[in-house]
């Protein structure tokens, strides 16, 4: 698919900048996933490990999206239903990860 599209001729390099923004978001998600894994392993809580897996999956998805830069060729539809769902999933996974961490923190301090 991406091999068939023509490279972007946008002088502002908008598709490239957006692709790089996805990539660095993915790298940061991996860093936070490592931190979550550290919490999970040191406190042996399954919830924190699950949050780490969720964030790692988010990181993979963001990196994958960052490598789809040629897809954003000039004039191509950007706001599709699938696109919207991807942003919603990104947002939701952060809310879920934060909620799991809060629950695990409270559980550890109560015990």
């Amino acid at each position, binding site marked *: 698919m991406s091999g068939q599209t023509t490279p972007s001729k946008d002088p502002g390099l908008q598709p490239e900048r957006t692709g790089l923004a996805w990539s660095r978001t993915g790298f940061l998600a991996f860093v936070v996933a490592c931190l979550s894994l550290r919490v999970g392993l040191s406190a042996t809580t399954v919830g924190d490990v699950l949050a780490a897996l969720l964030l790692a999956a988010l990181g993979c998805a963001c990196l994958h999206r960052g490598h789809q830069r040629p897809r954003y060729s000039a004039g191509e539809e950007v706001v599709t239903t699938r696109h919207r769902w991807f942003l*919603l999933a990104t947002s939701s996974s952060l809310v879920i990860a934060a909620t799991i961490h809060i629950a695990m*923190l409270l559980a550890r301090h109560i015990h």
Partner: protein
Amino acid sequence: MNSDSCAAKTPVEPDKKKDLKWWQTGSRPDYRFSLANERTFLAWIRTSLAIIAGAIGIDQFASHLGSPQLRLALSIILLVVGGILGGIAYKRWARAELAMRHQADLPLSLLLPFLAMFIALLSAGLAWLIIAFG
């Protein structure tokens, strides 16, 4: 072609307008504006991730900072703010996208001054804690 581009190119009958989702109304914005909106969304996501990382850092790597209750409170406050920012990122993206589809002004938000104030207070508080307990 997807339904979104069809909505932008073909006129919509008035009685069918009510059935359209918000992302199908109006006209398709310039792709560069959509991409800029997407990058703003990602910047908010990274802010949220950084705040969550800070919360884990205080919980795991700052064992001499204040009392355990204080560290717990700080971590939970940061996790709540990080989670809320992650959720608000999508809401902001959707509002800006809708405004662009209708050629309206971009929505104003009080989030920026509140976030700036929160980060400033947090930095001052953490600096005091490090000086007092470090």
